[in-house]
């Protein structure tokens, strides 16, 4: 068809009449993209070829049978349903999933374009290695052999800890589980994934407050909220479909409050907007709580029954007078009080937070302060309330639960000998064999005793570069990292880009396993020792995926893997074979043609994940839910009638006991209005039964039907015997449960009996407002390392430097000792765009999305622009406080406050002004490239989880 051939970028001729005087982001970008978009397309592939290839491959054909396949969008953790139309194995159409309980047919720009995955014109097409600076095609066998040989050699000379296995939140649950098992059997804790740099501080902060580190309610449940407060989140761009549920509430009178440094598109829909200085979340939260306490708005009965430590919080909050809050955050008394009033007078009110709250050196303080606010208001465990923590990637919740992390085994069992023994039993392998896989040396001490690498936290992904670059004498393992495997992880989502380049160049081996080459393929100047292996997308395999609200959704396979790509589970098996542990790896998992059977992986984690109730969700039950999307009520997510009547969609964890127990899932955590057997719960008894002589157990609060009728500790064989419930177990269950507790009894009997008597297996305790095991037991404000308010450092200093945390020294005070704010006067922060996701390699390779965002830019307030002689649309240099420079386009807008520069972080492929497009393998370069924001973002890590500080640094700007 001649009419609509792709030729060059459009001329934006008609927009001005709608845009009027105001310049918007897209007019600006499209104008700027005039040459660029065309160049991007034209320079990489002749336009005629591209169009022809597309049309012939993917267009729906008349008169050909169409198969309809159900899947779930692979972009964010809202988990929207996808209906794919497939003809002759080609993905030819996408239909709205109106019967899907979360999305009700809706998508955002990303979800509405996932079919492009089925064309994948910019995908990595075959295994490739870098030889003398040139990409060279190799076979899968060659690649696995060469990589495996090199790894085994590194293992011999430097130990297993010198190879880093960086996994992905894009894995399905089964792949995540297999991946965690894979690097356990390789013999190292040096593995991690995106959760470290998105919500690790949430998981740690929230789990340590009340038991589980996850979203407590659901997107759908927000329909019942009377007020919704979003802090450091921008769901209109990051989780657009969640807004559907928020609007449902809002149009029935709910108040929407947005607390955020930037006037986001979400803020544009808010009833009340509070602008704060980046990095002052604790201060603003305590500022609101000050008003709540001052006016007696707190829920005293809830606090008395279910919270420990609120008195200590009161002491800290008393310091946050309106004047102090304004001084630190910039928000005045009336604005802060109004936010507090709206939350207090419109209960149940819910609290939503995202990266703006988590990515800080005090991220864990921030997340705990949000929890305390909700505890004070009595908003927990109730429909319409809760902490609705929006997770990022489609399966970041699941990958976190499977603990593709450097500090735990699946199900948050930790790394103690007991944890390893539990999982060795589940895997049915000898614990001694597992132990023998690890380095037997000892490089650090815990409580005065030497500890082995098997039991110590590995490097976090945020700091893998320090694992390479740090002096060997300062790291708590045998040798530096020498090989790095990026398995579904973009490097440009991590800070300190220039040091990362150095680290990549110092490695012996760099392996990238991904559907796209990613920036890892091009950001360094290596000439050899780099392998790119094409992984299939989630539409080319199948399995379960956990959405933000803890529910598991089953995906069917839409199409066969494109080109030479293979599903991740197959690649894992091939490596396990090469590295010599395939037999143990798949002992109880069927393998077909090198592909481990997904359902067997589900069943295996069902047998081990007792802690968080990933045990009831058998593949059969999940598939039944998928078949019956239409039977779930979107207001409650409960099936009404049909084959899964009464169950909650996706069996949100904890789904207690065995699948045969038919637990319906827990739609709202800690909700005492329902029996545990029907999805009710209470706070977890995770922190002992008393503290300083005070009981930590709940007082007079318990789920409906709890036969103890009060707080109680977690269940074990002993407790069952004491209660006289031991004989409720069958003989087989008794044999399995002897000497075990609710977390380690593989029969599930202890859980079954506890629930039979109306009790939560994990006990019934108070939430703790004070986490005495953390560096700051009461969450306090500390100034960022690179602060624009050096005058506040004396009063709110950061931590002292630490010698070893996650095997590495951590700098705090030594950086804050210097005042950078004179040389770098502007605050630098970052965020998301709706069209792109994460590092953006996938979405920038999708022409339908790439066309909408063609240029990396920086948002600058008009006052700052005028001070620097910068006009809208001009190229500028943004220089980070550690000296890295970004050449980007200026977008002059009042969206950011004076003194703040905002960058979207999805771009990559340019480095300090240099376009590195030529370095991509031919035909696999994304349509749009740009400077990676994180190149200029700086050092700084959370005191508990090593989350990177990517929301608050300093910069200076100048015209390019």
């Amino acid at each position: 068809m001649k009419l609509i051939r792709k030729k060059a970028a459009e001329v934006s001729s008609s927009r001005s009449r709608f845009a009027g005087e105001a310049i918007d982001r897209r007019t600006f970008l499209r104008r700027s993209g005039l040459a660029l978009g065309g160049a991007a397309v034209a320079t990489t592939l002749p336009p005629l070829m591209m169009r022809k290839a597309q049309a012939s491959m993917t267009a729906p054909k008349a008169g050909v049978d169409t198969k309809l396949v159900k899947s779930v969008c692979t972009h964010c953790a809202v988990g929207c349903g996808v209906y794919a139309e497939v003809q002759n194995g080609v993905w030819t159409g996408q239909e709205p999933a109106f019967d899907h309980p979360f999305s009700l047919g809706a998508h955002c720009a990303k979800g509405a374009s996932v079919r492009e995955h089925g064309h994948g014109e910019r995908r990595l097409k075959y295994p490739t290695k870098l030889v003398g600076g040139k990409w060279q095609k190799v076979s899968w066998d060659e690649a696995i052999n060469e990589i495996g040989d090199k790894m085994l050699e590194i293992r011999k000379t430097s130990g297993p800890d010198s190879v880093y296995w960086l996994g992905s939140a894009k894995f399905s649950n089964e792949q995540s589980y297999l991946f965690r098992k894979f690097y356990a059997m390789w013999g190292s804790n040096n593995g991690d994934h995106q959760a470290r740099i998105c919500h690790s501080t949430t998981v740690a902060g929230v789990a340590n407050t009340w038991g589980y580190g996850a979203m407590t309610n659901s997107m759908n449940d927000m329909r019942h909220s009377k007020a919704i407060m979003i802090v450091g989140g921008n769901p209109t761009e990051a989780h657009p479909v969640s807004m559907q549920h928020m609007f449902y509430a809002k149009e029935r009178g709910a108040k929407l409050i947005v607390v955020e440094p930037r006037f986001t598109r979400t803020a544009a829909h808010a009833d009340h907007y509070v602008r704060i200085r980046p990095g002052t979340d604790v201060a603003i939260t305590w500022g609101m709580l000050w008003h709540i306490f001052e006016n007696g708005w707190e829920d005293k009965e809830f606090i008395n029954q279910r919270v420990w430590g609120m008195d200590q919080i009161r002491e800290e909050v008393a310091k946050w007078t309106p004047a102090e809050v304004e001084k630190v955050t910039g928000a005045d008394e009336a604005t802060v009080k109004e936010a507090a009033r709206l939350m207090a007078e419109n209960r149940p009110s819910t609290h939503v937070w995202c990266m703006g709250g988590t990515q800080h050196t005090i991220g864990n303080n921030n997340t705990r302060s949000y929890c305390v606010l909700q505890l004070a208001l009595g908003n927990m465990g109730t429909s319409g309330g809760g902490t609705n923590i929006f997770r990022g990637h489609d399966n970041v919740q699941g990958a976190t639960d499977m603990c593709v992390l450097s500090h735990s085994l699946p199900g948050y069992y930790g790394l103690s000998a007991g944890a390893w023994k539990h999982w060795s039993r589940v895997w049915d392998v000898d614990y001694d064999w597992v132990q023998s896989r690890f380095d037997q040396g000892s490089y650090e001490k815990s409580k005065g005793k030497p500890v082995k690498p098997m039991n110590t936290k590995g490097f976090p992904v945020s700091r893998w570069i320090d694992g390479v670059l740090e002096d060997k004498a300062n790291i708590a393992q045998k040798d530096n990292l020498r090989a790095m495997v990026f398995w579904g992880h973009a490097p440009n989502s991590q800070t300190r880009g220039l040091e990362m380049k150095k680290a990549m160049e110092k490695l012996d081996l760099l392996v990238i396993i991904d559907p796209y080459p990613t920036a890892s393929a091009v950001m360094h100047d290596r000439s050899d020792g780099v392998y790119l292996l094409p992984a299939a997308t989630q539409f080319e395999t199948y399995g379960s995926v956990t959405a933000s609200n803890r529910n598991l959704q089953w995906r069917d396979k839409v199409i066969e893997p494109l080109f030479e790509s293979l599903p991740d589970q197959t690649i894992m098996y091939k490596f396990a074979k090469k590295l010599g542990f395939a037999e143990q790896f798949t002992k109880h998992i069927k393998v077909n043609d090198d592909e481990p059977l997904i359902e067997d992986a589900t069943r295996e984690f069902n047998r081990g994940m007792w802690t968080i109730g990933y045990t009831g969700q058998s593949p059969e039950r999940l598939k039944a839910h998928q078949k019956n999307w239409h039977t779930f009520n979107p207001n409650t997510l409960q099936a009404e009638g049909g084959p899964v009547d009464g169950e909650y969609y996706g069996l949100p964890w904890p789904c207690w006991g065995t699948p045969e127990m038919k637990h319906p899932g827990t739609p709202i955590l800690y909700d005492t209005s329902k029996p545990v057997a029907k999805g009710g719960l209470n706070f977890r008894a995770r922190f002992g039964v008393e503290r300083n002589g005070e009981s930590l157990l709940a007082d007079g609060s318990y789920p409906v039907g709890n036969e103890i009728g009060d707080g109680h500790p977690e269940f074990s064989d002993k407790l069952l015997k004491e209660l006289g419930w031991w004989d409720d177990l069958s003989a087989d269950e008794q044999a399995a449960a002897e000497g075990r507790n609710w977390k380690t009894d593989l029969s599930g009997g202890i859980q079954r009996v506890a629930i039979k008597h109306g009790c939560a297996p994990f006990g019934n305790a108070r939430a703790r407002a004070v986490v005495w095991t953390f560096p700051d037991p009461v969450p306090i404000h500390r100034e960022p390392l690179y602060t624009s308010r050096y005058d506040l450092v004396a009063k709110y200093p950061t931590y002292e430097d630490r010698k070893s945390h996650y095997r590495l020294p951590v700098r705090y005070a030594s950086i804050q000792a210097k005042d950078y704010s004179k040389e770098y006067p502007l605050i630098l922060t970052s965020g998301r765009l709706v069209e792109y996701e994460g590092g953006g390699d996938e979405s920038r390779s999708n022409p339908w999305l790439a066309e909408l965002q063609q240029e990396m830019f920086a948002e600058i307030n008009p006052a700052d622009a005028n001070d620097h002689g910068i006009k809208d649309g001009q190229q500028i240099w943004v220089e980070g406080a550690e000296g890295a420079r970004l050449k980007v386009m200026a977008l002059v807008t009042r969206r950011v406050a004076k003194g703040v520069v905002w960058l979207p972080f999805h771009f990559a492929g340019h480095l300090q002004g240099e376009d590195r497009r030529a370095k991509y393998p031919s035909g696999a370069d994304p349509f749009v490239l740009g400077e990676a924001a994180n190149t200029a973002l700086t050092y700084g890590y959370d005191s508990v989880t090593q989350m990177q500080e990517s929301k608050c640094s300093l910069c200076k700007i100048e015209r390019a």
Partner: protein
Amino acid sequence: MARMKFLCDAERCIECNACVTACKNEHEVPWGVNRRRVVVLNDGVPGEKSISVACMHCTDAPCAAVCPVDCFYTTDDGIVLHDKDLCIGCGYCFYACPFGAPQYPQQSAFGVRGKMDKCTFCAGGPTADNSDAEYAKYGRNRIAEGKLPLCAEMCSTKALLAGDGDLVADIYRQRVIRRGGRPQTWGWETAYQS
């Protein structure tokens, strides 16, 4: 007989661009041609609003009035379509259109316009329904399959509504009553004289 209309609810539109990519996806519209787009007013300041715009399929369509080769026609459902075999790419319709809907593929910076392309309300064109030829020229014909435009069907917040004007108005009226605001049926007066 139904009278098809679009309505974008600016209280709900969040400028997520799902409508734009859904359109690209459904019709494989090439880079540079946008049958639908999202326009933002007061970007970045209080009062910011966005609205999704495409051909509104006007009752008395100005494009049809000015077309020198008379390539436009209105279906029984009130959908304004055009015949690309007749279109000469003169661009008059672009000047006449109150919504900036007509699009022209750019051959080069100063090249010929090429034949006009615009939103079809997912109703294809004059060639046989759901034929390969129809798909190539006009995109998919969802109306013939008994479906509504994909942009509206996939809208993240149900801001964009498409379908029989009476039903669209009913849905919107209920919303307006619920939230106690004044109706703002942007573009309807121009497109449908109502």
